[in-house]
């Protein structure tokens, strides 16, 4: 379990030698406790302290990076069960499974879908992160053929090689040399051979056991064989079992300091019915999957799952913000109305949504107020007449509109006088207090 700064301090040399870059050992200890620095920055730390601290400072769920280069993705490192306690750290990796029994058209179609999956949403680029190649045929040559296609057509995408056949693994893994792939498929009957192949090829090892106890035994064996980076699968397929197993794993690792289960979880959620697949993948995103394996990457599915993952993994302590600018909703013309509000993402979404719903073309000026809502921003002095006037002038919007009229949120009606002083020649109109009154307001103009 995690140690406090003072507990860590007791284990340090207490020489205040500054070699770690901090003025005192205590300052260094505090940084260690916050996991902002590594212990090896201290050159004089004793072996005993290293062991104690190493065990205690390791995150409860092992951080692992799969893939290499720009498209590498991080897994694990989670510290809580509920997102209101603290931000969930590394977003669930969405991967698409391709079986080596699929037709060449199906294979190239999926690879193409993965390559084109990137979408920009609220300033974040979201995409399918990985591909899982599945040795459904149990034929090493077929898996190798599929692997070669993936290497050729999607060379940068992180790969999960799924096979229970160590010989097939041995044949295929070198194709992904230097790309930090996952070798998934170590079970009770092949763990020694699979661990050896993973080690030889510097791969992450994916173990599958029937339930939590079996998985614990497998991770112990893998560690015994010198494998540190492991991902785990309890064999759960049904939604009920995924929830139960993932919850127990997260709790065991975080609350009980269980090291056998302190690894990222992979869930296979492929379904005949694509909508059911989305819903079970959604369960994985909300409830502790580090990787979900889907059967395909259709755009409509991607948009649903990317959005959920983005929402669940936002920082609950930091308001989501949208970019400051004048947004053009429903292709506004010079005579269209100009509204202003703050850049809190929820405010933006609700206001923009209501405006789009009204089908009235509108200029929507979104002002950077550090992600605060209208009343909070006003109270904090970030949504004031002076600042609004400055933003409107600098935005250049007045060259795009016919009449200089600015519609402000009803909650800050008090600003209208001051704004008319600061924005000379402008008419200030007070709009509704709540966004849901916007359609009626806009239509009645």
């Amino acid at each position: 379990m995690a140690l406090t700064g003072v507990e860590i301090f007791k284990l340090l040399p207490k020489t205040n030698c500054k070699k770690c870059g901090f003025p005192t050992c205590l300052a260094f200890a505090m940084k260690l406790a916050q996991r902002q620095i590594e212990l090896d920055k201290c050159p004089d730390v004793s072996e005993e302290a290293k062991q104690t601290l190493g065990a205690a400072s390791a995150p409860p769920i092992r951080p692992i990076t799969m893939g290499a280069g720009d498209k590498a993705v991080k897994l694990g490192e989670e510290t809580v069960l509920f997102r209101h306690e603290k931000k969930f750290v590394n977003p669930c990796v969405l991967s698409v499974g391709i079986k080596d029994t699929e037709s060449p058209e199906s294979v190239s179609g999926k690879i193409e879908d993965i390559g084109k999956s990137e979408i920009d949403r609220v300033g974040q680029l979201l995409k399918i992160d990985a591909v899982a190649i599945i040795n459904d045929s149990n034929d090493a040559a077929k898996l190798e053929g599929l692997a070669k296609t993936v290497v050729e057509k999607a060379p940068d995408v992180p790969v999960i090689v799924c096979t229970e056949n160590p010989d097939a693994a041995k044949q295929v893994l070198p194709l992904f040399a230097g790309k930090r792939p996952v070798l998934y498929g170590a079970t009770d009957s092949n763990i020694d051979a699979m661990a050896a192949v993973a080690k030889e090829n510097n791969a992450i090892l994916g173990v599958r056991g029937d339930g939590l106890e079996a998985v614990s035994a497998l991770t112990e064996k893998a560690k015994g064989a010198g494998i540190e980076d492991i991902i785990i699968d309890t064999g759960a397929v049904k939604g009920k079992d995924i929830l139960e197993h993932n919850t127990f794993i997260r709790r065991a690792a975080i609350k009980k300091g269980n090291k056998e289960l302190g690894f990222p979880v992979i869930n296979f959620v492929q379904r005949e019915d694509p909508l059911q697949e989305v819903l079970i993948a959604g369960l994985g995103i909300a409830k502790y999957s580090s990787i979900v394996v889907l059967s395909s990457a259709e755009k409509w599915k991607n948009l649903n799952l990317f959005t959920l993952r983005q929402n669940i993994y936002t920082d609950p302590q930091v308001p989501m913000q949208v970019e400051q600018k004048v947004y053009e909703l429903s292709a506004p013309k010079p005579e269209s109305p100009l509204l202003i509000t703050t850049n809190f993402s929820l405010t933006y979404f609700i206001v923009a949504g209501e405006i789009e719903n009204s089908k009235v073309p509108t200029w929507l000026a979104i002002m950077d107020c550090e992600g605060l809502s209208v009343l909070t921003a006003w109270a904090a002095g970030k949504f004031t007449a002076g600042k609004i006037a400055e933003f409107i002038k600098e935005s250049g919007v007045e060259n795009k509109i016919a009449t200089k009229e600015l519609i402000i949120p009803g909650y800050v009606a008090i600003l209208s006088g001051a704004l008319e002083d600061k924005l000379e020649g402008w008419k200030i109109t007070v709009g509704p207090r709540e966004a849901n009154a916007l359609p009626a307001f806009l239509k009645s103009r």
Partner: protein
Amino acid sequence: MAFTAPKETFSGKVYNVDIGLSDKIVNFGGANTLSFHSFEGEYTNKPAIAYEIQDIPPDDWPETVKSVYSSVGDDPVKWAKYCQDDLNASAIALRLSGTHPDNGDLSADQAAETVRKVFDNINVPLIILGSNHIEKDSEVLVKAAEVVKDKNCILGKAQETNFKTIAAAAMANNLKLIAMSELDINLSKQLNIMITQMGFDKEKLIIDPMCSALGYGIEYTYSVMERIRLAALTQNDVTMQQPMYGDVGMYVWKIKEVQAGEDAEPDWGSIKERSISWEALTATTLLMSGTELLVMRHPEAVKAVESFVDEMM
């Protein structure tokens, strides 16, 4: 070393709420554990799903969902019977949208008449929802409550600024009541306390912490719901032990992602599958955080959520 599952049990329990009459009664709530955690506690009632209908035609609903009701949307009675008989709805939520001053301004008497007709023609439980206009709702819901006295319906929603009249109407007519606050656990608790201080039975109350659609603030609803449920279970807080309500259809079927065609948003894929999935995924995500009563619009989304629930039970 044998592995012991780190089970957690709680001292608190969510109240069981029943709605409807005789053999069509629907129960929801009643769990003493987190959503679908039947592996460590009692989670026996499936979440309930009501089909949303309106007193006026669904002209402002996007095409994908409006087209489902094209032959019945002009008449709330036909619409309700279609949901009950053809779609196997286990409950109906009648939203009195046409009473909103900006949307037809139908009178409270007209609304009450619609409620009476719909109620008389169905046998599944009925949820009666206002148009979310603070003043008008107090008028409309009071009249609507009278026509379903003792019929075990739900009346909604009572909010901070109009709860007195609406809660009084629910109490006088022996109905269940939805109490809605805006995305804040403390506001929700405070509203529940004020309503129960009027003498309203805390076991007839349903919490609406305010719904949000996927991509439009669902993380706020999700976390507020998780916190409310944890307060109910771990702190045994009786003011937070009511089942929770998710007004999913209304929040989903107005956003851009369910309306933009593939020509406008080529990266978003099939509008039909995208939008139905949007409603279903919003619903299941809220179920994970604690919702027990959903109001939804598209039958394919409802069916998908029902299959999901079956898989989770």
